[in-house]
């Protein structure tokens, strides 16, 4: 009996490890293959023709990809910054103000873009822009309109991330600041803001990467001459496999992996320091 229990416990352990390893292989092997084949000399995607950096060299002359990258970076920078500002305001309204007219509609509208298919968001914003163009002759479709679409989606994600953080804050800290005579704005800049910085950084990175990755909304809202990097990749991928896509994909994957690793180390360190400060400040109470 005991042997059987030991045997089944051992089996469960091996099975569990095996499942985890298989799962991670499933998650990572496709990406690894993509990276490996970006160094493939042969233009055929399935045959290994020896190591080569030629696709990276060609990337430097590929003006379509370089222009797309530059446009995407500009849009992502503006949309992440705008999303975090608007999203923080929305999150703040929802967490701090429990009663105002139309709060239900507001909270619904904040989270709705998260579940709305991108095709519908793209279409609806396009129809709005068409109507606006018809009425005012403004705005022309291009960088500005793509930015608008990304801001729309990014704001909701930023609001969710910041809201989660604001809900965990101890309201007594803000009340204490108010008791000490701080104005609402000072309470925000001196007390609330330093405590939610990590979530602002996470929200910024998340919305930046969402914007840098978006195809559907950009396709709906872009005009002639405004082709973002994902739009270039998508149009090439639609036609078939392209070594240039593998090379640009590898660059993106490496850059994103480094940024995410650095950011998460920074956030973890900041969190630890904050926890230490709070426990030092409140030690006398207990």
């Amino acid at each position: 009996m005991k042997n059987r229990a030991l045997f089944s416990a051992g089996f469960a352990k091996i099975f569990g490890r095996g499942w985890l390893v298989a799962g991670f292989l499933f998650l990572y092997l496709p990406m690894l293959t993509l990276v490996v084949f970006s160094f493939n000399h042969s233009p055929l995607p399935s045959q290994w023709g020896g190591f080569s950096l030629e696709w990276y060299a060609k990337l430097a002359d590929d003006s379509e990809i370089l222009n797309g990258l530059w446009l995407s970076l500009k849009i992502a920078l503006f949309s992440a910054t705008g999303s975090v500002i608007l999203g923080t305001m929305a999150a703040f309204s929802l967490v701090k103000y429990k009663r105002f007219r139309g709060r239900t509609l507001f909270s619904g509208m904040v989270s709705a873009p998260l579940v709305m298919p991108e095709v519908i968001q793209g279409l609806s914003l396009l129809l709005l822009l068409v109507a606006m163009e018809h009425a005012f002759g403004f705005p022309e479709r291009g960088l500005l309109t793509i930015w608008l679409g990304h801001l729309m989606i990014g704001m909701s994600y930023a609001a969710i991330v910041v809201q989660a953080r604001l809900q965990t804050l101890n309201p007594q800290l803000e009340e204490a600041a108010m008791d000490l005579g701080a104005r609402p704005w000072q309470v925000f800049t001196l007390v609330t803001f330093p405590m939610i910085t990590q979530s602002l950084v996470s929200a910024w990175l998340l919305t930046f990467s969402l914007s840098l990755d978006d195809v559907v909304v950009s396709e709906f809202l872009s005009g002639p001459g405004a082709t973002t990097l994902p739009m270039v990749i998508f149009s090439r991928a639609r036609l078939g496999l392209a070594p240039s896509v593998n090379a640009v994909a590898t660059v993106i994957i490496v850059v994103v992996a480094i940024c995410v690793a650095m950011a998460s180390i920074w956030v973890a360190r900041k969190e630890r320091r904050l926890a230490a400060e709070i426990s030092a400040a409140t030690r006398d109470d207990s």
Partner: protein
Amino acid sequence: METSSRSRWVPRWWRGRSAVIGIPYAWLLLFFLAPFLIVAKYSVSEMGDIRVQDIVSVTDGVVRFSVKYANYVFIASDSLYLHAYVASLKYALCTTFFCLLIGYPFAYFMARAKASLQPLLLMLVMLPFWTSFLLRVYAWKGLLDDGGWVANAIVGLHLDRVLLAMGLIESPGQLMHTTFSLLVGMTYTYLPFMILPLYANLSKMDLRLLEAASDLGATPWVAFWRVTVPLSFAGIVAGSMLVFIPCVGEYVTPELLGGPQTLMIGRVIWDENFSNNDPPVAATVAVVLVLLIVVPLALFNRYQAETREKRQ
């Protein structure tokens, strides 16, 4: 404190408060609600000679409303649309099922791994989540296309016969642009969405409950099914919603990995707008899709509200 500060600072305080609420509110009204109302309006308009006819017209001082149901009648009568809706729901359900099948044991073993190892495992699950969605879909194109190593392995092991028998592919050896490639791609891209809420739920479970079950004579297998699974039900529901809802309206994966057999509703909206140049029909399809998504979402919200009430 609250009352005294309010009586002295009412105007200033109100200005700050109404700006904090007002700016995002106005933004959402203008760029979320208004566009959606325009979509709804388009769906009850008809294409005129060149441009879409207005639903409100003023002739000789008389305001006329001309709401047309023709688009709804049209998409109801053409079986293409019905097929696309059914296919979208079917593929979304299958993807959710496969994600749960792979993701539940994964999240379970992750939550039971050594505590010191867990942050690293979590980070490894999150990382693909950060890398481009588009590139993750594209990666499968290289693997499943003729000569890709996964395709070679499947054909070499004669597994393509099994897939053919299951109706997931149409001819042996041809794996790309089939139901199979579509489901693999969607399961792959949405798997982290399933794992993360399940892990969050399972890692919070009180392990003493399992000890109690074992003291009462339950084998680990019985304890798993009668204690762990019911307790993680909220995580299962949350993960399934996170996978199912975006899958229904998915466009990129069916376009890159699917074939002519796998027409999903996202592609229909896209084609109506871009290829057929018929925004009213695209808008009608979109309105129906929103209704399809709202129903499971409303059920989910009710379920969440109920569990919250029960806990209190």
